[in-house]
């Protein structure tokens, strides 16, 4: 891949030969890391009896039976659970974008009494384990009959409880030149217009990071969904997958792998589409 490196900035130590070894080592290690995933993909198209007899990746016999079997293994088709997950996740993304960006603008750009105190509370709340609130939340949501609805999961997102994203956007807004806000203020724009027409358009990278992380984390989140969505008509993909594992015991691994891959599909898609934002988001929150 890279034998033709010119020698700019390259220490004497890293001559082409040693670089090649390095690449080889990295590729071998990467394959080793991803081997379980490749194995799952390959197993999902193997007939059941071959899965554990063949550790290799190339199947000697290919079948789509696992996918059709797994798709219809539970009460509803797996597409039904994927749809439930998609609705829940998209609402969560909208909620986080809405509430966290409002809060972030206030913390990054406005002066108001007790701001430092609230900001400190917000930072501490990032570290708060949500188990410490989950019992009373469950009791309250149970009381207003919200169990087996998506609201116990979606509503908190519209109330900016994922403070991590507020922090991420505050960090981002702080890097934007204040002159832009001031110019907008001189032109007579209020805070809402400055927020919507000046700051938000510049925040697109931070918003994208927020959207992608929210999507992936909500899609994967098993604890809350398993807690609130137990009715067989309400299950989301991860909860349905778990039920599948429960109900089939130690058989039908092929269909289970097939549906596992289907359930990871959207995450993989978002990962490919948004890598740039994911990496940048991780880096900025980690550093500043």
């Amino acid at each position, binding site marked *: 891949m890279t034998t033709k490196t010119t020698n700019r900035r390259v220490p004497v130590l890293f001559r082409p030969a040693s670089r090649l070894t390095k*690449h080889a080592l990295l590729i071998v290690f*990467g394959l080793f890391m991803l081997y379980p995933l490749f194995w799952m993909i390959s197993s999902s198209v193997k007939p059941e009896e071959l899965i554990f007899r063949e550790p290799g990746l190339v199947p000697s016999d290919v079948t789509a039976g696992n996918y059709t079997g797994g798709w219809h293994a539970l009460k509803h088709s797996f597409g039904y659970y994927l749809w439930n997950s998609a609705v829940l996740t998209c609402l969560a993304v909208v909620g986080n974008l809405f509430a966290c960006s409002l809060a972030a603008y206030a913390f990054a750009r406005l002066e108001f009494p007790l701001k430092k105190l609230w900001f400190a509370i917000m930072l501490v709340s990032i570290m708060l*384990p949500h188990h410490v609130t989950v019992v009373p939340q469950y009791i309250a949501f149970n009381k207003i009959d919200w169990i087996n609805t998506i609201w116990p999961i979606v509503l908190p997102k519209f109330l900016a409880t994922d403070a991590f994203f507020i922090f991420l956007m505050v960090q981002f807004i702080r890097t934007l030149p204040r002159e832009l806000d001031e110019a907008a203020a001189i032109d007579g724009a209020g*805070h809402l217009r400055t927020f919507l027409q000046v700051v938000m358009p510049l925040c697109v990278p931070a918003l994208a990071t927020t959207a992608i992380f929210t999507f992936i984390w909500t899609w994967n989140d098993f*604890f809350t969904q398993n807690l609130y969505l137990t009715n067989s008509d309400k299950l989301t993909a991860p909860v349905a997958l778990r039920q599948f*594992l*429960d109900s089939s015991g130690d058989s039908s691994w092929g269909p289970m*792998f097939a549906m596992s891959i289907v359930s990871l599909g959207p995450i993989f898609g978002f990962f490919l589409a948004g890598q740039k934002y994911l990496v940048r988001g991780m880096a900025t929150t980690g*550093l500043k």
Partner: protein
Amino acid sequence: MTLRPAAADTATETAEPPDTPPVQTGGRRRRRRKSSRARSQAWAGYLFLAPWFIGLFAITLGPMIASLYLSFTDYSLLAPAHWVGLDNYDKMFTADDRYINSLKVTTTYVVVSVPLQLAFALGLALALDKGLRGLPFYRSVFYLPSLLGGSVAISILWKKIFGTDGIVNTFLGWFGYEGQGWVTSPDTALWTLIVLHVWTFGAPMVIFLAGLRQIPRNLYEAARVDGAGTLRQFRSITLPLLTPIIFFNAVLEVIKSFQSFTQSFVVSGGNGGPVDSTLFYTLYLYIKGFKNYEMGYAAAMAWVLLLIIGALTAVNFLMSRFWVFYGDDN
């Protein structure tokens, strides 16, 4: 991390007051004009924060206090809560072996898996840092597992990879080693989860990579001129300048791994087995609160968890004084 901007703010503020006292009247008038603008900003600030405030009080602080109250009661959703004082806490530490066990299991998990995970993350970040071609590709390959690691799908996969007839045993078989059911043996089940956690080293690795990029190149050039070898450069430049990032990753991963749930739930079939060897703290909390409906007890467990995490973070911060090096101290 966030300390720097905040510190800068207070510095400019404390610098102002000494000038104001002599010109009392003028100052006051100016302050009044300023205050009407300030008042409009204050209004706007609190309006923009309105959703967050509602969330803070209704979803976070309110339930926190409620759960503190519940932790002193006996409550099962059906009958009204009744006050039992410190009984729940007392029972936890004196009469509940499963609880003590879940603490041990979780502690082992955190203490073993976090350092290993960070070591891998740092190692790979160093290997990728030196202007390597194809960096984005490698970074993606190593980062992907940390996005998938928390999912039910991967836990299912893990259960099978480490099962009696899983690929781990097949590989071991090639080297003439008789495998075993790693997930079904109480001696090894927790280790399969530790391996899963280490597998997700990509997230801290990305943070390390960004940190490495901030180290000025000319430091290395100067060191080379002085005749320092690769190892010496690593020990005297890279490592000290990276300590804030190592610290940040350590705090984050300890907090996160202490709350791990999905892996142990799925791999053990929801009961923390075999023989409670994978009974994570949060899994036991879930069983107590939402399977047995001992919600007072679960609330007490949650508060102890909060105290543990708070204490771990505090210890981390205290220890950081001895080994974390902030370059801009002066």
